[in-house]
């Protein structure tokens, strides 16, 4: 048995844990504070931040240092209203939900469909098809963004959400994750379903999918995180502001209201909240083991 950890080591580890947590949360706290700050406030200096907190806690439009009445400098939801209305964020929020949801569903379904024959069927060309699929992982989408865009234009999908969704509706990584999960499922279950008269598609739907649910959930979560965050591709494809996804809209806010950066910060918080909520609700699917399988492909 390894001895109990000495107290000093536990102390050091606890300090490291606190520092790491501070590093992870610090920028988000700053973001939220600035998004709540009223016009004319000063968040960037320590004194300004202190005043902000004091005003927020006491709620009084009184200068905490001099004791004199002044403008209220505490938290306000004004920036959120302004960002929502002036930045027209309702459309981008809906667009982001559509793009993210569709991409997650497509990623899971198309990857699971493709993985089934690769994991379970005997056919000519199986191994070279799989190698070809894996080879697409070697091609960074940043390298092929020009011809990808040209294809989308030629398909008449420029400036549409479908154009944003289609190229990333399935990935080699997803196919490989599903293939590994399917290979773990005992063949006897498949055969039993067959004897009961199930078709290939029914076996896939009623046996393979439910039994690999944790992997599929992880794949869905990866897709959601990636799609919600993506900026480069929607920036290339989308032109009209009504078609923007949230990251593109927030990027627009940053340029358009350069004089009042608080709007972009409020927009950033609005795009952060849904994804954090999704993550916290589904974090039980994020097991370290999934990352071992996932990155090795």
């Amino acid at each position: 048995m390894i001895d109990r950890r000495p107290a000093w080591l536990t102390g050091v580890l606890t300090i490291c844990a606190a520092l790491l947590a501070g590093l992870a949360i610090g920028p988000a706290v700053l973001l939220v504070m600035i998004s709540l700050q009223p016009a004319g406030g000063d968040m960037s200096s320590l004194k300004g931040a202190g005043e902000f907190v004091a005003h927020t806690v006491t709620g009084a439009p009184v200068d905490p240092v001099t004791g004199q009445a002044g403008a209220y400098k505490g938290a306000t939801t004004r920036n959120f209203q302004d960002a929502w209305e002036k930045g027209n964020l309702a459309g981008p929020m809906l667009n982001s939900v559509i793009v993210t949801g569709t991409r997650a569903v497509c990623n899971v379904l198309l990857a699971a469909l493709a993985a089934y024959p690769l994991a379970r069927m005997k056919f000519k060309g199986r191994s070279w098809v799989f190698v070809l699929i894996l080879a697409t992982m070697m091609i960074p989408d940043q390298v092929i963004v020009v011809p990808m865009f040209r294809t989308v234009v030629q398909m008449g999908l420029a400036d549409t959400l479908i154009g944003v969704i289609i190229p990333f509706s399935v990935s080699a990584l997803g196919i490989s994750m599903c293939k590994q999960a399917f290979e773990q499922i005992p063949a006897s279950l498949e055969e039993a379903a067959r004897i009961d008269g199930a078709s290939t598609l029914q076996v896939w739907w009623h046996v393979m999918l439910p039994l690999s649910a944790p992997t599929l959930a992880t794949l869905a979560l990866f897709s959601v995180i990636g799609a919600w965050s993506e900026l480069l591709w929607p920036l290339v494809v989308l032109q009209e502001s009504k078609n923007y996804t949230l990251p593109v809209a927030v990027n627009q806010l940053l340029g358009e209201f350069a004089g009042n950066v608080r709007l972009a910060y409020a927009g950033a918080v609005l795009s952060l909240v849904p994804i954090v909520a999704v993550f916290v609700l589904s974090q039980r699917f994020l097991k370290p083991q999934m990352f071992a399988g996932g990155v090795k492909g």
Partner: protein
Amino acid sequence: MKGVIGQRWYTPWVFLLPALVVLGVFFVLAFVQVVYFSLTRVKLFEGGETEFIGLENYRRLVSTDRFWWCLLNSGIYLLVTPLIIGLSLGAAMVVEAGLKWAKGLRLVLFLPVVTPTIVAAIAWRAALSEDAGAINGVLRAVGFEGAPWLTQWPWTLLSAMMVTLWKGFGFYMMVFLAGLLAVPRELKEAAYLDGAGRWGVFRHVVLPSVWPVVMLVFVISSISALKVFEELYVTVKGAAIEDQTVVPLIYDAAFERGDYGLASAFGVALFLVILTFSLVNMKLASRGKEGAEG
């Protein structure tokens, strides 16, 4: 690996079809096209016609100073890799130590990963702001001068690297956790009984077992550092292109200047760099693995 009863010859292909169409059109075909475009002058919006001009774009690429600056900057950007390995391995070890709240800590450290890059970049812009940001504030308080984080090379690169590091370390922490959890407990106990101290167990048992994972993370995070775009595009918005890396250069050439041929040549060059890099990496990784085993 049994064939399914009653399977027709086309059944597997029906299942594969949607994925093959998407990957074929948007990755395989696009890759062939990017190579072809790099040899042409492309008029994207005039019917998409292309005019073959041989190696002209590559001649322009070689004689463009910006390309070499951006390539150098991509090289500098790779320095984020050792930092990310150190931070994520450290974080994984802290989480794995089994403190109270370890599950909660893991959750919190993964939050930057789910944060959209643009949100992370905006938050860091506030911390890095030149006259008033928290980071310059701290630097001044301890007697340094503040740095022009958002406007001047090479500080701009460093700022974007901080965002990459912040957003990425939680992901690699999970990869390392998987590696650490796979180290057999008996092995650690045996080494401990043989008189290896805590440090000895780490040095001679844990580190060799996770070494392949270190190599893996090295490869993945280097490749993603070479592909960086969003961190630079938002964090140091408006910085000169020659102060950025290769992907912003591709974006600028294609979508700001409409020079698709040259942009494609930049793309092919980046692909070759990434390919070389991953091949060398894999070679080193396999050698490192043999070393660890032998």
